[in-house]
């Protein structure tokens, strides 16, 4: 995966009467892990949809290595909020979806994704349908489908939001170790403060309606980060919580 530099500047988006994004400005540098953190309904998923082409911004710029997004082929592999596995495809064929869209023959695509199964803890489940898998396994399958596309940047929309707390913690650490190993460039969407602090190099706080980037936070903690947050990590967490829970009265 070659590096790619993403920049969003002053991006706005409204749905008819609903003004969702007032001013989204963010950047992701090659090799970086960046999170957008905010409460539900603030427009986090909308940001990713602007990047994947499902929606168009009303104004503002989206730049890839300095060039407008519309002029380049999208270098993103997107993992939607709900896993969006195709119920009629077996896990192996869900994993090959991106390659098949790119025109790779199914047999060839299967050969290419087969080695991923062991790494994603899905060995032996190639021939299962999504309905036969647990929630955690489905999320891993969805992430595998994302990785298999072999794109420069991963866009992950609350990948573990639907999981129980224990499975979610396991998956977060698993993602951390996978990221260490492969050096993916990631833009992660989450509403989970601890998740953001555990995984990110930088965090953007998104708040308000319409939503703005309220604050940018660096997380200069060494890796790998442990399953019990260090005092430094806890301090960052409580700072973020304070900002998010602050009454918004004085802004109006």
């Amino acid at each position, binding site marked *: 995966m070659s590096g790619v530099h993403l920049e969003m500047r002053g991006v706005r988006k409204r749905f008819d009467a609903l003004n969702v994004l007032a001013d989204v400005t963010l950047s992701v540098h090659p090799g970086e892990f960046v999170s957008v953190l905010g409460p539900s309904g603030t427009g986090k998923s909308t940001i990713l949809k602007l990047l994947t*082409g499902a929606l168009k911004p009303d104004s503002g710029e989206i730049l890839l290595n300095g060039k407008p997004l519309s002029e380049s082929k999208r270098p*993103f*592999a997107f993992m*939607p909020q709900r896993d969006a596995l*195709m119920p*009629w495809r077996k896990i192996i064929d869900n994993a090959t979806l*991106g390659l098949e*869209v790119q025109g790779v023959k199914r047999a060839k695509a299967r050969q290419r994704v087969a080695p991923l199964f062991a790494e994603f803890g899905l060995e032996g489940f190639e021939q299962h*349908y999504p309905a036969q898998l647990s929630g955690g396994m489905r999320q891993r399958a969805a992430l595998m489908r994302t990785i298999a596309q072999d794109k420069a940047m991963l866009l992950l929309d609350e990948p573990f939001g639907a999981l129980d707390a224990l499975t979610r913690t396991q998956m977060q650490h698993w993602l951390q170790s996978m990221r260490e190993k492969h050096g993916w460039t990631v833009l992660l969407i989450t509403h989970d403060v601890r998740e953001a602090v555990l995984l990110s190099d930088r965090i953007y706080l998104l708040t308000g309606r319409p939503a703005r980037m309220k604050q940018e936070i660096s997380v200069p903690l060494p890796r790998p980060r442990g399953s019990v947050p260090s005092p430094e990590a806890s301090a960052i967490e409580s700072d973020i919580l304070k900002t998010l829970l602050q009454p918004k009265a004085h802004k109006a």
Partner: protein
Amino acid sequence: MPRSEPKSHGLMPMFINAIPAIGAVAGLFLAWEAYVLISGISPTTLPAPSRVVAQTVEHRAALATNTLATIRATVFGFATSLTAAFLFSVLIDFYGPLRRALFPVLIITQTLPLVAIAPLIVLWFGFGLTPKIMLVALVTFFPMLVALVEGYRSTSKDLEDLLVSMNAPRHKIFLMARLPSALPYFFAGLRISITYAVVAAIFAEYAGAVQGLGIYILNAKNNFRPDLVLAAVLVSSTLTLALFGAIVLIQRLSTPWTRLEGDKAK
């Protein structure tokens, strides 16, 4: 860890589920048989079930030839309508305004009474296969078109957005997401339409034909043979059930994942 392949559908549980229905039907026939025996009613008014079965066996050669004609009309008519419904559904899916142009006209075709249309079509197109195919198609085309169009529209937005994120062109989104999403709707439409199809074929034959269960029923009625009318009814019901069963079987074999989701919901 679940390592099982999707289970093949158990025929035994299916049979056990069917026991109450079989019992109810058997009870009904027993009561009918008993009534005919006790009342001594003439078989030219109400023949006993045993007589109907005996007549069915005795006239099996004639019934078979006529049934074959009806099957031919049903299958050709249904195949024509399926092909047309699929083509139109794809056109509508790729070009939305077509739906608004076509649906009102098609809904009107569904309001036409079969009793009036069947003789007219026979009058215009003769006693051959063509009018039967047309009538079967007329009755089944619209339900199948609606099933397909609604099925495409049921595709999850998440899946489409995912494919868009992969830079999939429109026709790939159709093939990879919209078409498979429509399969359950398609089969639901198929199950309903196949029963209409047989009825429509018989109706068309009744209005005028050289061969077929419809014309067989008409002749039996004109000869005061209610036992033979009922023999033809027995055969046509069996035929409809067989076609219905075949569709259920095809659905089970071709969409194994829907059963897994059902298992989970339990």
